[in-house]
């Protein structure tokens, strides 16, 4: 009985402190996990990764997303996988001459403490039949701080991953006696592999002072290092977008909205690079001057003006961009909400993003829905949208109605 009472008092003393962390974990265990990712291989087969019951599952479609094979489990041991909204699993198929294709999957695992997470990685070298044991990619060994919002770029056997990493902000704040003001935002870390994920170089910091919880977007040009687009904190307060070559880390300002808020927008941008090297990107800002979705492009150092996209009063959000196919073909897609339903909206340019078609609705859904994503590495503008009622749907935006 005495032991029992002792246990109870101990439990009561610690219960409050653990509640927030327990909430953090259960929140991610109970959420829908609707965030999926799809990638094409060179045969045109689509590979999909989805999160369910603590595991990542990979399945394959040979009919452009109409049907998928039985899923293969990626991680043997269940984990608290973060797979919704901005924190999304990633998938790519790495093909280099003379080597068997390698399927790589990256995701974020929530740890026990609130905001604590790790970047996880696993790959299949047998054509998706089985996956090697999952690895943690952040190499600081800190399990009580955040490493999340992982993005990925793949080309040949080269693999680049980037994520938002709290080690710099945590160290600066700890050194300042816990003062939050000691460091603005978080930091971007990058890791690279030259052998399709068999081994990785050490983690390196790309940039200080990123916004804390907006998805990152990595895109590869035809030659050279990938570019990263992320929401940065400029001058200590403006949460606008930054663009950098991951090999140099030199930041250019991708948007000059001047959104000065100490808040989490949970709303990242998206970047695509056309065969001619033109960079196209889309983003969201809540800045009072011109709130909403915007698009612009850049060739060399010629930067186009920002163009508004979507219906501001229908919560236009989560924009994505695709460039390729026919020369100068660009597609935008985003989500709107009106009359009790989500609408998947798109527009198309055939002159490299200078002029645009009217906006149109491709699909709708009346229940919970993921953000739309283009299929990675597909030779056509394949837009994937996962919704609770309809499951994964793939739309070929190159085929006009």
């Amino acid at each position, binding site marked *: 009985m005495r032991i*029992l009472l002792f*246990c*109870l008092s101990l*439990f*009561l003393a610690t*219960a*409050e402190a653990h*509640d*927030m962390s*327990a*909430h*953090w974990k*259960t*929140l991610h265990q*109970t*959420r*829908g996990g609707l965030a999926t990712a799809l990638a094409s291989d060179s045969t045109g087969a689509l590979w999909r990764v989805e999160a369910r019951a603590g595991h990542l599952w990979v399945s394959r479609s040979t009919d452009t997303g109409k049907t998928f094979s039985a899923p293969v489990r990626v991680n043997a041991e269940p984990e608290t996988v973060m797979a919704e909204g901005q924190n999304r699993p990633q998938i790519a198929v790495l093909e280099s001459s003379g080597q068997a294709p390698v399927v790589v999957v990256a995701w974020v695992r929530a740890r026990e403490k*609130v*905001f604590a997470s790790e970047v996880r990685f696993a790959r299949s070298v047998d054509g998706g039949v089985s996956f090697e044991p999952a690895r943690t990619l952040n190499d600081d060994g800190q399990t009580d701080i955040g490493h999340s919002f992982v993005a990925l770029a793949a080309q040949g056997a080269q693999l680049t991953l980037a994520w938002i990493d709290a080690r710099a902000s945590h160290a600066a704040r700890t050194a300042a006696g816990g003062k*939050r003001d000691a460091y603005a935002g978080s930091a971007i870390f990058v890791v690279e592999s030259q052998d399709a994920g068999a081994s990785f170089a050490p983690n390196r910091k790309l940039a200080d002072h990123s916004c*804390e*919880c907006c998805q990152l977007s990595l895109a590869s040009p035809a030659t050279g290092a990938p570019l990263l687009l992320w929401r940065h904190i400029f001058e200590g307060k403006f949460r606008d977008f930054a663009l950098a070559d991951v090999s140099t880390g030199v930041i250019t300002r991708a948007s000059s909205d001047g959104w000065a*808020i*100490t*808040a*989490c*927008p*949970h*709303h990242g941008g998206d970047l695509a690079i056309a065969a001619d090297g033109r960079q196209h990107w889309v983003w*969201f800002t*809540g800045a009072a001057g011109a*709130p909403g979705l915007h698009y612009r492009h850049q060739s060399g150092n010629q930067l186009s003006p920002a163009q508004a996209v979507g219906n*501001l*009063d229908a*919560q236009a*959000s989560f924009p994505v961009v695709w460039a390729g196919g026919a020369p100068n073909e660009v597609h935008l897609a985003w989500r709107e*909400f009106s009359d*009790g339903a*989500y609408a998947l909206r798109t527009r198309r340019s055939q002159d490299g993003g200078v002029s645009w078609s009217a906006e149109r609705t491709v699909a709708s859904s009346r*229940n*919970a*829905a993921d953000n739309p994503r283009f299929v990675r590495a597909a030779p056509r503008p394949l837009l994937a949208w996962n919704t*609770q009622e309809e499951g994964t749907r793939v739309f070929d935006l190159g085929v006009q109605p």
Partner: protein
Amino acid sequence: MSLLRKLLGLLVLVAATTAFASAPVKPFTTESYAAILAAHRGQPLVVAFWSLDCAHCPGSLATLARFARAHPKVSVVLVATDTGADPAALASHVRQAALAQAEQWVFADPLPERLRLSIDSRWWGELPRSYLIAADGTRSAHSGVLDAGQLAQWLSAQRQP
């Protein structure tokens, strides 16, 4: 084994009891915002939206807690945007932020846009998001961490004739 099981059962029971000791967390639907305004009509009101996923929310709640203590006549309503979250855990978090007396709600819709449109079509989900509603019903929206000076200024502006 049996003793251990009894002990665990008791612990769960105690955890549940302590967690539910605060005011209940009400489900927030498309009618709730209007209901909150109606219930607090004629008095200064702060409706603060927050989430556990939001890195800036704890700081904002702390500012709000200090303000609420200094100005007990101002109503404070907290709305967590974490649909599906355990109400007991939310209540506990708010208690830790020293806001246990505040009225608490939690989003109860798989489509958060539907709820946001019932509040303000020009709120895109960024958090923390707060609405300061004066006694005469005038509303001002604020995205980001609440500032003590800003709250004080808002309140004193209402006391001017």
